[in-house]
């Protein structure tokens, strides 16, 4: 079952109509080629109109699309020799985060990312991509290893947030996130972070301290989910759509707020239309970022990382 989002229904309907007409032409001897052509032209226009004018809420829906490619989908496209490694050596293995080593254009890298499931069964196993402390601690263990062996780190961000559960609190969710922020600040290897879906608050940030932060065009990055913001601010989670607009959570907003470096363009209709093609867009930006960072002296790398985050914020001085 293909998931169709509300705002893209007109596109889908027209597409179906064209497919029907094509089928009809093939099966009967009526020639509808010119009608089909007209409709196809209209489709191009309609697609441009619909996907070119996406509202923040449309992008939220797109970022949460059931078929949206996950970390492992991109890993398959972008890297070779990927080996996944498990466990934080302290408590357990959190499958909401995948982590391992691979080669990128022939050079070793460490790859880490939030991992949602593709179906209910996998989602339960992966806790819908919402990590516990052991997930963040596994990630940190692998980051330290990357530093030791001088491999760049690539993080894919795709989570609703760190899991709000009893066990997570008992095991130190706050400390796990805080520790990652602090330790990532000092890692003496390049770190590239790419938001591929939802960048949900501290749970996203804990994989998000890097020398370059990029976002897929239809991904979001926010301090709180639109539903959460609406509930807190207006005591009504039904106002999520309004919150999505107010809170400035799209890639364009974050670029404007000078939080991210690049927006990675998405295919018309979203990344899930063609994972391989979408991966080439990521590849382009990733490659460029690594080229810029590979040969930077370590001290300069860290200094620039600090300067990058130091300037984020809006205030005035009397």
């Amino acid at each position, binding site marked *: 079952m293909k998931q169709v989002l509300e705002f893209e229904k007109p596109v889908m309907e027209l597409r179906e109509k064209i497919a029907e007409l094509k089928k009809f032409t093939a099966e009967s001897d009526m020639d509808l080629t010119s009608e089909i052509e007209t409709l196809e032209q209209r489709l191009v226009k309609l697609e441009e109109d619909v996907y070119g004018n996406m509202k923040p809420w449309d992008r939220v829906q797109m970022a949460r699309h059931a078929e949206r490619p996950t970390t492992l989908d991109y890993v398959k496209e972008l890297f070779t020799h990927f080996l996944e490694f498990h466990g934080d050596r302290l408590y357990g293995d959190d499958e909401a985060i995948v982590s391992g080593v691979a080669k990128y254009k022939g050079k070793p890298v460490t790859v880490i990312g939030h991992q949602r499931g593709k179906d209910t069964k996998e989602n339960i196993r992966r806790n819908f991509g919402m990590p516990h402390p052991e997930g963040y601690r596994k990630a940190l263990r692998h980051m330290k290893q990357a530093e030791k062996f001088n491999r760049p780190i690539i993080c894919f961000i795709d989570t609703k947030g*760190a*899991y*709000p*559960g*009893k066990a*997570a*609190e*008992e*095991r*130190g*969710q*706050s*400390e796990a*996130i*805080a*520790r990652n*922020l*602090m*330790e990532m*600040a*000092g890692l003496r290897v390049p770190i590239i972070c790419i938001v591929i879906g939802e960048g949900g*608050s*501290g749970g996203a*940030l*804990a994989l*998000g*301290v890097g020398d370059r932060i990029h976002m897929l065009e239809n991904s979001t*990055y*926010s*301090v*709180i989910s639109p539903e959460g*913001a609406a509930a*807190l*601010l207006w005591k009504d989670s039904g106002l999520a759509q309004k919150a999505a607009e*107010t*809170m*400035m*959570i799209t890639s364009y*907003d*974050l670029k404007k*707020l000078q*939080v991210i470096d690049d927006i990675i363009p998405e295919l018309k209709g979203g990344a899930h239309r063609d994972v391989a093609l979408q991966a080439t867009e990521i590849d382009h930006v990733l490659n460029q970022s690594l080229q810029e960072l590979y040969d930077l002296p370590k001290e300069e790398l860290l200094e620039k*990382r*600090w300067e990058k*985050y*130091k300037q*984020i*914020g*809006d*205030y*005035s*001085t*009397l």
Partner: protein
Amino acid sequence: MLKDFFSKKKKYASIPREEAKQEIPEGLMQKCPNCHKIFYRKELKKNLNVCPNCSFHHQMTARERIDSLFDEHTFEEWDQNIITENPLGFPDYLEKVEKDREKTGLNEAVVTGKGKMQGFETAFAVMDSRFRMGSMGSVVGEKIARAIEKAKEQKIPFIIFTASGGARMQEGVLSLMQMTKTSIAIKRFSEAGGLMISVMTHPTTGGVSASFASIGDYNFAEPGALIGFAGRRIIEQTIREELPEDFQTAEFLLKHGHLDQVIERQDMKEVLTTLLDIHEGGAQPS
């Protein structure tokens, strides 16, 4: 209008309970929310806002905290002149900030500076939960990061007292990024050999507990303080079970290994001073 004359509009305003509680401190007497005994405000103040009957730790303003810890006339305040902006164009945001500014006499939800504690010079940041629930926006993040940087430059320790509901919603992702900014500042300070002590007071939650509050060289808390990442209600909704009463209290965190000590307010100065003494003042290697 004649219609208005007949309307059954209530003639009184109802005050939500929380606010009603807050109003009492302005008066002469104050009721302890824990044991319900009533005390003279002055008596309570003299006791560092700790209930003389049941030891309940009432919240302290930033100024009260500073006065209770630092030697007289040694306090120097930093960055009072940084002012909040409204990056998302959030309705009524600046008005609310202005109101809290007037109410508290502070420019934002944290006071930073340096002072001497029994002669030991130390930089500090003290959060004030009366100001937008102590939430962290750009100014709070910037002030804390600058205080840490100054501690690094001046080679003195850094002590933070947290009291915060977390990141400030009205500044969106910029608030979130203050977690990173402050954490990087701490990392740089730590690499230079700087001593950081974190004291979590009621409440320390969300983005503040998930950044600087939890990564001191020593992490302490006051008794009964609420400390945690996610809100209790959200957790209960998620896992559909009731949580133990002591969930996310300082004592709960101590039990689960996340704190070095829970320190009574009366003992705070002594423990901190002893620790500074053990660190021989906490000066960083040159």
